[in-house]
């Protein structure tokens, strides 16, 4: 017998919760929804574009009636719930329908606040809240020309803009002397007013309404200073009030909204509430972004999984008025404990202000150039220390020495620009999917377009697209969960693995309440890495949680064949090794022999069954795995150094070989490359490697956090040391702090940008003790995991994992 869930309110919050619930517990409830409006669930925030004539009602539908049918959800539309008997758990509606429940979800949203001045109930006075209001505005504009909008906030300005687009003459009346004073400071407010005036909007500032007059319909509005304006339509957009009428009537505890705890539960444990009708930790939310975070948590508790709490949302605002770029987030006014960084360029119409407290961004206002809004809000949410990037902060992310795709600004890209190079997804594809399919989260976009679902390096770009497409309606989750199998973030999971001494994937899944026993491809690989890197001695590597390349110790190619790349220590080889490689290439008919970028030789087109045979031949001549397939130390590139080069200052090949001997075989969060150059001419390109050594006459310069790849990032200079021993100690310490602290699949460059170069430098340069301990732990891990037993020898000679390389059976 299914339990019964009744939802009061057929809006975005309630339906998002139902969708999340159907995803995780599709068979738990028989669901009934009551909606006062005569429609399915539509995207309320897109009412402005509908009013402007840029979109139609059909285009903003999120769940049409077919959806309710397909998902076995009973919808009573155009029906208002009048009473809930909490003793018998029965809901009664105004058409006489009754329905019992096991759990009740209240998502009644909010109502526009109508100022109770005389005449407020005349026909022609409306709010701006639903399809009915939009219809009324469009209808009026067909025959009448004059409109007044009361309220110069976000909603009021969008309404006024829409009415102008419909050909009306519009005056905005505002109580304060600054527009959108909850989002803008005086300067940006004034810039906005000027731009809107240029588009034909009129303003009456610092004015309060005393009366609305008219004979059977609105004709005139009168203000406290005695002035008046003749008008045919008045739109009140002075704020919203949580709709808590029903909740109060049935005795639920309400303050300004229905009071809920961090699981979205009201004071009646059977009743949950979500959306604009609630009050959470003293906050009311009138924007849509927080709803999605709430819905996730609420669905989780309705499904009785019992994990996930809602702790509030950092919201940001964007005005949906064509031609005006405006962004605002957090505490943008500041006080005596904060400092501002401000850029003001009147002729370009640009104003940017960032408010900083304790070296962290707590608020921002951007006008005219909002491209970096999503970046600032990310820095805010993650409470990133901005000391290291302060000088470039105002100029935007594009001016940082950034890694990955970070610096590309999506707003400037054309629709056919490729966002996800792995899966060939263009900007147009992503934007289209977001708008047509009504997507709101990164996971949604990944599932529908595949963008950002492979290597993940374009995740930032996809998030920017969500931000720019949805505006303030997109809320990047505060800490992203590893995948859909859990609510927990990478950092939390790793912390628990350490604190609770969890030494296997199944322990982690059990203790941290994973949603399913097996996890998925994404979380199994991550969690396996965290377990083995945290507990090298106590844990056992889980074979089936390795990507195929790390199981087969070779790189899978697109046709299902593999590549073989033996290690060439420090880029050095011998005639004997070259002969061995040539021999296997001929013996196994491998036509493609390629010199790789990492100073090695790759053989391509190898059949899987033949891998152990090839490895055997190579092993016999002393060659071992190059780990060219792994999230591991790849190569150490070198130049010939002082032994041959007339400019060489130190033995760069020698140090390269020692570095490779130290670190080969160690599993890392992502691939890891090193290089050693014999002089500052830097022929080995050490300053675009994860760890680079540049020899100088007086010793060795050490550099960290570089990469080639999609977006080149040059290294940060770490320090200069005198001896080879010190180079090796620093290298070991750096490898280990990266292994212990970076998230799985995060390369050193984005990791360093996330935690700050200063932190890394303090940890391994300033703190001598910490450096020595890190280096010790690295060597310990190398030893106890026997990571330098050649995996190829194990498989070619010692019979390890034989099943991997032989068919189960050959038939036909």
């Amino acid at each position, binding site marked *: 017998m299914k339990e019964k869930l009744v939802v009061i309110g057929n809006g975005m919050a309630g339906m998002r919760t139902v969708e999340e619930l159907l995803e995780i517990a599709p068979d738990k409830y028989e669901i009934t929804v009551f909606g006062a409006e005569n429609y399915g669930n539509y995207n309320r925030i897109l009412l402005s574009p509908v009013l402007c004539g840029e979109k139609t009602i059909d285009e903003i539908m999120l769940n049409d009636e077919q959806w309710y049918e397909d998902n076995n959800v009973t919808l009573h539309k155009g029906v208002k719930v009048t009473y809930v008997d909490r003793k018998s758990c029965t809901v009664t509606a105004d058409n006489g329908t009754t329905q019992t429940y096991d759990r009740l979800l209240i998502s009644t949203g909010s109502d526009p606040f109508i100022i109770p001045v005389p005449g407020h109930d005349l026909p022609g006075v409306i709010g701006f809240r639903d399809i009915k209001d939009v219809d009324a505005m469009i209808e009026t504009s067909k025959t009448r020309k004059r409109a007044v909008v009361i309220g110069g906030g976000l909603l009021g300005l969008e309404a006024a803009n829409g009415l102008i687009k419909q050909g009306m003459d519009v005056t905005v009346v505002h109580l304060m002397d600054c527009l959108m004073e909850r989002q803008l400071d005086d300067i940006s407010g004034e810039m906005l007013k000027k731009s809107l005036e240029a588009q034909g909007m009129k303003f009456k500032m610092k004015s309060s309404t005393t009366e609305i007059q008219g004979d059977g319909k609105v004709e005139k509005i009168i203000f406290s200073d005695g002035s008046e304006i003749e008008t045919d339509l008045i739109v009140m957009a002075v704020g919203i009030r949580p709709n808590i009428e029903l909740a109060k009537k049935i005795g639920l505890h309400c303050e300004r909204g229905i009071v809920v705890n961090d699981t979205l539960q009201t004071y009646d444990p059977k009743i949950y509430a979500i959306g604009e009708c609630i009050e959470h930790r003293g906050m009311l939310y009138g924007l849509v972004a927080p709803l999605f975070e709430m819905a996730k948590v609420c669905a989780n508790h309705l499904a009785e999984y019992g994990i996930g709490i809602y702790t509030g949302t950092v919201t940001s605002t964007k005005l949906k008025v064509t031609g005006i770029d405006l962004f605002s987030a957090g505490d943008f006014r500041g006080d005596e404990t904060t400092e501002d960084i401000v850029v003001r360029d009147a002729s370009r119409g640009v104003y940017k202000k960032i408010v900083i407290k304790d070296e962290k961004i707590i608020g921002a206002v951007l006008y005219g150039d909002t491209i970096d809004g999503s970046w600032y809000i990310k820095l805010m949410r993650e409470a990133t220390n901005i000391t290291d990037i302060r000088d470039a902060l105002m100029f935007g992310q594009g001016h940082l020495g950034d890694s990955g795709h970070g610096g590309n600004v999506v707003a400037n890209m054309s629709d056919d620009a490729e966002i996800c190079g*792995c*899966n060939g997804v263009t900007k147009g594809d992503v934007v289209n999917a977001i708008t047509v399919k009504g997507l709101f989260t990164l996971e949604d976009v990944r*599932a*529908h377009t*595949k963008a950002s*679902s*492979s290597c993940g390096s374009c995740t930032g770009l996809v998030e920017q697209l969500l931000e720019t497409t949805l505006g303030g309606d997109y809320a990047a989750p505060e800490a992203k969960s590893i995948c859909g199998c859990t609510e927990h973030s990478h950092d939390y999971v790793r912390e628990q693995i350490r604190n609770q001494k969890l030494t296997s994937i199944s322990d982690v899944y059990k203790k941290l309440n994973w949603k*399913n*026993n*097996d*996890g*998925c*491809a994404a979380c*199994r*690989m991550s969690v396996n890495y965290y377990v083995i890197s945290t507990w090298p001695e106590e844990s056992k590597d889980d*074979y*089936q*949680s390795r*990507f*195929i390349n790390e199981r*087969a110790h070779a790189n*899978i190619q*697109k046709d*299902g064949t593999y590549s073989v790349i033996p290690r060439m220590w420090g880029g050095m080889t011998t005639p004997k090794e070259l002969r061995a490689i040539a021999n296997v290439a001929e013996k196994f008919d491998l036509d493609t022999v390629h010199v790789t970028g990492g100073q090695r030789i790759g053989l391509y087109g190898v059949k899987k069954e033949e891998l152990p045979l090839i490895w055997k031949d190579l092993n016999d001549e002393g060659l071992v795995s190059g780990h060219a397939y792994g999230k591991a130390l790849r190569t150490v590139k070198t130049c010939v150094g002082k032994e041959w080069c007339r400019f060489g200052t130190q033995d760069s090949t020698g140090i390269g070989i020692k570095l490779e001997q130290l670190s080969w075989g160690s599993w890392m969060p992502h691939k890891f490359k090193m290089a050693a150059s014999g002089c500052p001419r830097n022929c080995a390109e050490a300053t675009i490697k994860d760890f680079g050594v540049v020899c100088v006459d007086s010793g060795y310069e050490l550099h960290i956090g570089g990469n080639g790849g999609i977006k080149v990032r040059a290294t940060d200079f770490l320090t200069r040391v005198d001896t080879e021993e010190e180079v090796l100690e620093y290298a070991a310490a750096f490898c280990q702090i990266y292994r212990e602290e970076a998230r799985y699949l995060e390369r050193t460059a984005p990791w360093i940008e996330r935690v700050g170069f200063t932190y890394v430098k303090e940890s391994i340069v300033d703190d001598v003790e910490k450096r020595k301990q890190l280096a010790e732990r690295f060597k310990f891990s190398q030893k106890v995991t026997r990571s330098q037993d050649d995996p190829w020898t194990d498989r070619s000679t010692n019979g390890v994992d034989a*099943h991997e390389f032989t*068919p*189960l*059976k*050959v*038939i*036909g």
Partner: protein
Amino acid sequence: MSSWIEVGLVEDIPVLGARVVRNGENDIAVFRNSNDEIFAVNDSCPHKKGKLSQGIVHDKSVTCPLHNWKIDLTNGEALGPDIGCTGHYATKIEGGKILIELK
């Protein structure tokens, strides 16, 4: 005409792993999940022919190693918003031996 062919023992396949059965030109991927259930599908992802036998197995599905499509092992259909199907085969276990139905 269909026939049941024995291809090996359940224990020949690692838990949450897969093995390949060569059937002439065609490879069949045989999977074992954490409940010791056995599934068989064509070893070719409907997306770009990735070898599903090389993927990561979870529950009753496998994630293709090439582009992360998820395939339902019970019927060979792509899961989630992806659309496509690779052929699947009925399987049964008799006395620890795996049998696959070939048509």
